[in-house]
């Protein structure tokens, strides 16, 4: 690596990327630097995205909210629009890494890094977020679930970057839940996690359900079968325990240094039981 470039605008960035196709972009560098020093990547140059105003910050766009890719986790935690519209995202970021890493790391980096354990991903899947991809010539959007194709693999072409994510406001969801199981309380990589957004009727019946699991498959897992099984039911423990069996079949975890596949499968199901507590409150 011979040079670090610090562009201040997208136009400047496109010039750099076209000059040398082996230029890698980064924001906080909390994933990239670890990979660079581990010798897993070897770009000829780096371009830092942090100083590009166009891709930073949170914007209220009426029916939806735009979050710039280079927005740090700390910034998102402190943003009242995000915490009021998307508490499930705020809850996940609160347990992402450590305070210093949240000061440095960005949501765009978390998405493009595409780790099955990336903590913002289950909320973004549950919220049906769309990723905006830009190049010098065009801008396009696609669902985050299409953008991420495997561990560390995303649909990003040459000279394209992620500009940010769009999340539709969904006030109809009155239960917003996130839980991560790790090997310790803080700064823990997820062994399994669950993000849930549910609408409960006045009578306590589930009218809409969106659930997404992290760390129990090559990408975040959603299951139409599980979501349908919840509809019309009340959030009580017996029912959730039944549906947990479906969850165990829907996920496809692996064994790794943190946990066995079997343990992850069981935990993925059991994470559902916590929703019973939300049922009581409503």
């Amino acid at each position, binding site marked *: *690596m*011979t*040079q*670090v470039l*610090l562009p201040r605008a997208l136009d400047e960035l496109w010039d750099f990327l076209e000059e040398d196709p082996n230029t890698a972009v980064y924001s*906080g*560098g*909390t994933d990239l*630097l*670890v990979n*660079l*020093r581990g010798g897993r990547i070897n770009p000829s140059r*780096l371009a*830092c995205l*942090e100083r590009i105003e166009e891709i930073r910050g949170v914007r209220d766009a009426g029916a939806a909210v735009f979050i710039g890719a280079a927005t740090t986790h*700390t910034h998102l935690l402190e943003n009242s629009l995000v915490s009021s519209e998307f508490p499930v995202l705020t809850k996940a970021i609160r347990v992402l*890494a*450590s*305070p*210093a*890493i949240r*000061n*440095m790391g960005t949501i765009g980096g978390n998405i493009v890094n595409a780790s099955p354990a990336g903590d913002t991903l289950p909320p973004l899947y549950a919220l049906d977020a769309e990723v905006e991809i830009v190049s010098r010539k065009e801008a396009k959007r696609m669902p985050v679930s299409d953008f991420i194709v495997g561990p560390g693999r995303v649909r990003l072409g040459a000279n394209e970057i992620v500009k940010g994510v769009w999340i539709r406001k969904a006030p109809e969801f009155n239960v917003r839940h996130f839980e991560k199981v790790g090997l310790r*309380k*803080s*700064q823990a990589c997820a062994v399994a996690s669950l993000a849930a957004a549910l609408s409960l009727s006045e009578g306590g019946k589930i009218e809409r359900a969106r659930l997404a699991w992290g760390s129990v498959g090559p990408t975040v897992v959603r299951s139409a079968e599980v979501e349908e099984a919840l509809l019309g039911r009340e959030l009580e423990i017996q029912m959730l325990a039944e549906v947990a069996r479906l969850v165990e079949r829907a996920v496809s975890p692996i064994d790794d240094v943190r946990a066995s596949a079997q343990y992850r499968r069981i935990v993925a199901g059991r994470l559902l039981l916590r929703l019973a507590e939300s049922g009581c409150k409503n």
Partner: protein
Amino acid sequence: MKQAIALEVNGDTYEVLVSPNQTLLEVLREKLGLTGTKKGCDLGACGACTVLLDGAAYLSCLMLAVDAVGKKIVTIEGLSQGGELHPLQKSFVELGGLQCGFCTPGIIMTAKAVLDEEPQPTEESLKKKMAGNLCRCTGYKKVLDSIMGATARMGGER
């Protein structure tokens, strides 16, 4: 290819020649001789290398030195004023908030960022905000006591 950059550290401007892949940690320690900032895991997981960038806690091992240009960097060496230790440092000395001392600079820098933002934290809040700094000697009790002790000493001031 080396690059000449200017870094503002503890109020002084240093002109240094760095390689693009050198971390801020390496430059602080090896080029500027500021060895108070420690290299622990060198992977962002232990907090020993914590410094302040524009007032917020950053991990200098996960940051390229060139990327720190234009930011105000404060290291443990920058906390004392006119030969007087910072209240946090005094509190750690008096209450024994350390044993081997290796993690202490990082812990104190994080604590400084925490107290600048929340001068009278509850112990619960403090625990959450200190979660990225590992200590393998103390069991954390005396670390937390020392930070809480400093809040009393500082009386809500920075």
